[in-house]
């Protein structure tokens, strides 16, 4: 307690400890807000039930021919991996929203004034949020595979691994947008503008192969496309793009988003 003492020992922040502390904080927050878990599952579930079961019935009416459109899968199987990816991808953006709320409620300054490397603080935060998102993804994955067909334990785990990377992508993008925005409303606006197009040209709801070239080109720069294709491949064995390419595309976009977010956060001042 002898602050102001002569040359008192100064604690040295450690990258790993700061990273773990921020991850822990995010997980504790997640635990404290159970309603958020429910909330994040509602939208994809609605999508699965009303969109998925509806179209599934329509395609079944067409008969076995419709399967050729989905690489031999039923429509529900085709859709299931996309629903899981969508769940965690949206939860990842929630991580960016958390940054905005922290700024509104003041905690942001507590983080900014800390001596730990900014990369540890931001990546720790994203690690915590993405673990929470993964839990939501797991719940969703079990729900959808019960409906659509069991992909086996390894298929499920591999699908979740792809989903996890997708969370990191959206958390990185979310943080980047949040750090460039002044208000929660602005963030919400940009997110809405970004999320829906990304979802629709991800190949989650319909195959992108028959699409016009320019839309296909957009899909190839969409990290969600790679994530969905990868998840569908590992879960049900059907790829549009070679899996290695999927993994590479996803990894590149994710690394880029996280790198930019860290760079932005490192240059963040109050004024």
């Amino acid at each position, binding site marked *: *307690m*002898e*602050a*102001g*003492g002569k040359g*008192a020992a*100064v*604690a*040295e*922040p*450690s990258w790993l*400890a*700061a990273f*773990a*502390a*921020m991850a*822990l*904080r995010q997980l*504790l*927050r997640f635990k*404290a*807000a159970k309603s958020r878990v429910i909330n994040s599952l509602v939208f994809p579930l609605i999508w699965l039930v009303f969109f998925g079961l509806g179209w599934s019935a329509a395609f079944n009416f067409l008969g076995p021919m419709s399967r050729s459109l989905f690489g031999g899968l039923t429509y529900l199987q085709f859709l299931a991996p996309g629903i899981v990816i969508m769940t965690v991808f949206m939860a990842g953006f929630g991580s960016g929203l958390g940054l905005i709320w922290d700024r*509104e*409620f*003041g*905690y*942001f*300054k*507590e*983080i*900014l*004034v*800390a*001596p*730990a490397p900014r990369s540890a*603080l931001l990546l720790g935060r994203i690690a915590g949020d993405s673990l929470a998102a993964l839990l939501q993804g797991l719940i969703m994955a079990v729900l959808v595979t019960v409906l659509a067909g069991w992909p086996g334990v390894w298929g499920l785990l591999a699908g979740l691994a792809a989903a996890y990377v997708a969370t990191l992508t959206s958390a990185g993008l979310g943080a980047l947008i949040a750090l460039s925005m002044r208000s929660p409303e602005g963030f919400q606006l940009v997110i809405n503008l970004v999320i829906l197009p990304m979802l629709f040209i991800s190949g989650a709801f319909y195959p992108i192969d028959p699409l016009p070239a320019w839309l296909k080109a957009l899909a190839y720069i969409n990290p969600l496309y790679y994530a969905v294709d990868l998840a569908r491949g590992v879960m049900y064995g059907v790829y549009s793009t070679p899996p290695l390419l999927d993994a590479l595309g996803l990894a590149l976009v994710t690394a880029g988003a996280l790198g930019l977010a860290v760079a932005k956060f490192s240059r963040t*001042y*109050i*004024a």
Partner: protein
Amino acid sequence: MGRGAEDYVIVAEGLRKRYDGVEALRGVSFRVRRGEVFGLLGPNGAGKTTTVGILVTLVKPSGGRAVVAGHDVAREPWEVRKRIGVVFQEPTVDRDLTAWQNLYVHGRIYGLPRRVIEERSRELMELVGLEKAMHRPLRSYSGGMIRRFEIARALLTEPMVLFMDEPTVGLDPQARAKVWEVIEELKKRGVTVFLTTHYMEEAERLCDHIAIIDHGRIIAEGSPEELKSMVGGDTLYLVAETRLDAEKLLRIASGYGEARIAEDGRVVVLVARDAPRLLPRILEEARAVGARIVETRYVRPTLNDVFLMLTGRSLRDEEGGWRDWARLHLHARRG
């Protein structure tokens, strides 16, 4: 009496800050000594928070420089951050977490081992009178408790200097008194404190050294006594038993300053410096010449008088209004 630069925990030289259009700081300089409680006193919008922001490395100055805890805030912000504790004007806690969880995360981010965090947390929560609330979520804390908690958290790393931006703004009188007690305890322990306030009682009661800031400039600086003596002096009222006694008293009093007889001829009014030291001497002289005094009283200038003299405006007008209250509570409600 040469003091080395190492005796100063904070050295600010010509700090400037321009927000697009607004000149918030126009060349602010001061020094803060090790172990003192330094107060930056000024009305709303004077530039207090901007000054703190620069010193704690979160606001980039447009000009000037500052050295805090031996390191330049612009060139070595990381070194500065390791050595300071900060209580911002608005709360910066995670209300969904308990006090302990907030402390633990804070300590780990600063690189403290868990054992040290546990030990110091217990001690510090006791210091601020919150030891029983350690495992309650901060959502259930009152505004005053949050303030005290933030002081404890800021001290967890044993900083070389503790920054507090308006530590009692918006608190009710009891909560304010509790925060004051904590700061007085820190003062006893020799913690260097830099605080800002627009309450002059607060500055007067807590600070060893005060700089008065207005419109981005330091307009006066010194100990509370030095500042108040700028106004010209204290006013003493000596009530004599008879008119004759009063006349004898007047002759004595005139030796110390400007004196006159007022009211019904029995009251001597003396304007002079340092009344508390003067009064016993006057009483002694009066006894020597047999002048009987029935009552004495003196009025000292306040920091408000100093501010009034320097700016023509009163600090009191700006004080403690509903605006402060609203600012804290509206903010807290969102949290």
